[in-house]
């Protein structure tokens, strides 16, 4: 794919691109030699010390000390030329190696010896970049100056805005400084007058209505949150009919696809925009008691990957949140523990701000994500046999 000059370079080799998978989760991982413990940076496929090829990408200590800093005032790259001046520094990672990093140079070069915290962030091309921020900094900082990470002053459209997560999203985005929130719902709402929140009657399964909404609001929406969802709570075989499974696909998959198809062209044209798909950790593995729902979320996960790839060259971000069971009307019959809707909404706000692509809010989802990365088949059996696992 030819690179657009108004986006950062995508130059990495395949092995180094593995930095991206941790950055997508907002984590800092490097290859660690399993034979001698040496942390590899620049990343290598053989241990620089003992030559073992038994390397594993592991979370490493985020601390670092400034060695030397410069400010790039001239670049041979069209994208960087537009962002000058840029802070670039070499730091000694607490994990051992020396790394090149970006830093905020608005107050001049950071002094040698300064303690720093390294964040592994995605830039606008989806490449991982090591960013150095002050050691005590809380949360993610926008050293990469990515307009897609701002929420303040932006217009957000949320589907399913009357549901549990939807209501929490409206509140969280208002608190985050969104200038306008278009709260889309299938059923008419008693809308109280509000300077920020505006209601929109929209059934995401009505393709013509979605197209009209995109025509009407595409020019103003910066962030699209596909939150509308449906759960039949049935197995794939134990349901009497396929109506529930059909409706799950219509809302969860085709509804999301229709919304993205409507709004993405407006985002691409502006070379800016964020799409957030509210998925479920069950997009990765089937829970038999709601098998058709899981299938619809798995389809929407695949959709997420596909549109992300198609939109990446246009500077449009596509992210997904993967919660475990959330305490909403739709999951009234599901057993605890359940996430508070506000936790999911807050995870989405954080994800937009820190530039990551995936978020697993709460301990259950993040544990399950880790278990899936380690051994997906084991998790599949665990689900098949029913939770909790006998010890």
């Amino acid at each position, binding site marked *: 794919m030819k690179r657009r*000059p108004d986006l*950062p*370079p995508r*130059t*990495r*080799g395949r092995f*180094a691109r593995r930095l991206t998978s941790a950055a997508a989760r907002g984590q800092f991982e490097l290859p660690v030699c399993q034979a001698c413990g040496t942390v590899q*940076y*620049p*990343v290598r496929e053989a241990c620089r010390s003992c030559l073992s090829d038994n390397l594993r990408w592991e979370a490493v200590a985020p601390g670092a000390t400034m*060695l*030397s*800093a*410069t*400010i*790039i*005032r*001239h*670049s*041979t*790259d*069209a*994208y*960087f*030329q537009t*962002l000058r001046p*840029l802070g*670039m*520094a*070499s730091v*000694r990672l607490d994990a051992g190696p*020396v*790394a*090149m*990093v*970006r830093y905020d140079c608005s107050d001049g*070069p950071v002094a*040698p010896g300064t303690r720093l915290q390294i964040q592994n962030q995605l*830039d606008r091309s989806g*490449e991982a*970049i090591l960013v150095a921020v002050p050691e005590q900094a809380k949360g993610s900082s926008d050293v990469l100056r990515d307009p897609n990470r701002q929420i303040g002053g932006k217009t957000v459209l949320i589907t399913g805005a009357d549901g549990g997560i939807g209501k929490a999203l409206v509140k969280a985005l208002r608190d985050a400084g969104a200038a306008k929130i278009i709260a889309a719902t299938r059923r008419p709402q008693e809308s109280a007058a509000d300077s920020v929140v505006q209601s929109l009657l929209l059934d995401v399964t009505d393709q013509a209505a979605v197209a009209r909404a995109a025509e009407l609001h595409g020019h103003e929406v910066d962030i699209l949150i596909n939150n509308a969802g449906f759960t039949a709570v049935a197995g794939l075989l134990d349901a009497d009919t396929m109506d529930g499974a059909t409706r799950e696909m219509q809302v969860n998959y085709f509804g999301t696809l229709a919304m993205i198809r409507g709004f993405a062209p407006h985002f691409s044209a502006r070379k800016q925009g964020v799409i957030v798909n509210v998925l479920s950790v069950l997009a990765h593995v089937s829970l038999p008691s709601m098998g058709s729902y899981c299938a619809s979320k798995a389809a929407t996960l695949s959709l997420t990957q596909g549109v992300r790839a198609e939109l990446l060259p246009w500077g449009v971000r596509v992210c997904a949140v993967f919660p475990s069971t959330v305490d909403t009307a739709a999951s009234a019959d599901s057993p605890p523990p359940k996430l508070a809707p506000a936790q999911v909404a807050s995870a989405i706000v954080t994800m937009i701000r820190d530039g990551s692509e995936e978020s697993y809010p709460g301990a259950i989802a993040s544990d399950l994500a880790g278990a899936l990365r380690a051994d997906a088949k084991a998790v599949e059996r665990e689900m098949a046999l029913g939770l909790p696992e006998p010890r």
Partner: protein
Amino acid sequence: MQLPRSYEGVAVAVPVSTVRPRTTRRSVHWFFGQTLDQLIRQAGISKSDIDGLAVASYTLGPDNAASLAEYFDMEPRFILDLPYGGAAGVMAMTRAARAIQAGDASIIACLAADLAPSGYGIYSNFSAFTRDHIYPYGGGGANATFALITANYMAANGAVAEDFGRICVAQRANGAQHALTMFKKPLSMEDYLSARLIADPLRLFDCVPRCCAGEGFLVMSEDRAQSLGLPFARIGGAIERVNGYSQEPVMSHVGIAMDRDRLYNQASMSPQDMDFVQAYDDYPVIVMMQLEALGFCGHGEAPKLVREKRLTADGDLPLNTGGGMLALGQPGAAGGSLGMNEALRQLTGKSIGATVADAEAGVVSCFGTVNYDRGLCSSAAILTKGRAA
């Protein structure tokens, strides 16, 4: 100390340089052809007398020394490609000298030529580490890397901008007299200090201008050089070091600092015997590290040295007497042969610029191959004036 075999019996001769335009529509093969043509004419030999080719270039790929042999209809029995940029000059000479001693070839042409890169993204693919871990951090190229090295050196050794400026001003004074200079006008300290920042703390005149050019010289036996009536230089000693001081978090030595004693012992000489220093000058901080490595002062003491010494060709520490790349431009990998050719011109009475009076011996130091955060290759040689036996 175990010393390598001497380079006795080997002659280095016929320094040639092509025109040096800032841009060109010609291919790099043209510059190689011009270089080879000058070598043959000035040496009074025919093309078929050259039976060895050592080639350095960044822009020749996918071609190589063998491709050039076919291109120029030659049949060498010894070829060598040296993709080591600024370090290639001395490395080509020492390898060619050993091949001459071993009888693997009788006349080896050491050729280097490159085109100036242009356009966006030119340094994006310089090496795997650069591509993966340097370029995505701002595309600052070598300027950014050496800015970090310079900032670290200043903090460690108390160097100030004027110290680097002294090197640049002296070299431009030397270069103003050179036949091939890109700048007839000398540089003042005020010009240097008031120039815009490129990558803090580097200013415009710390960074070499790029050009397109070819450089070449011949390596053969002394007997052959004498029978051809060619003035020549001898190799008193030579050292090189790759990835030296690799544990330094920020580069503060050039690798040959590890090998200095071997260099002078092999030549039975000392720094005081050197009539000039030709040091690779991609950035002044690297010149300082080479002066330290070569024993003209202690580690970290070059700022004091350049305040005390006069660095022009008529000074008490003649440095880059042709002006170096700061005056003659950096023709990519051929920049690594500028110091070699300037040393050969001074020692064979063929100076085409400022002349060091009665030069009998000098040192050439090369440096290059920036891979991640530093240059990996460092090499140096002592050359002495050759005399008929």
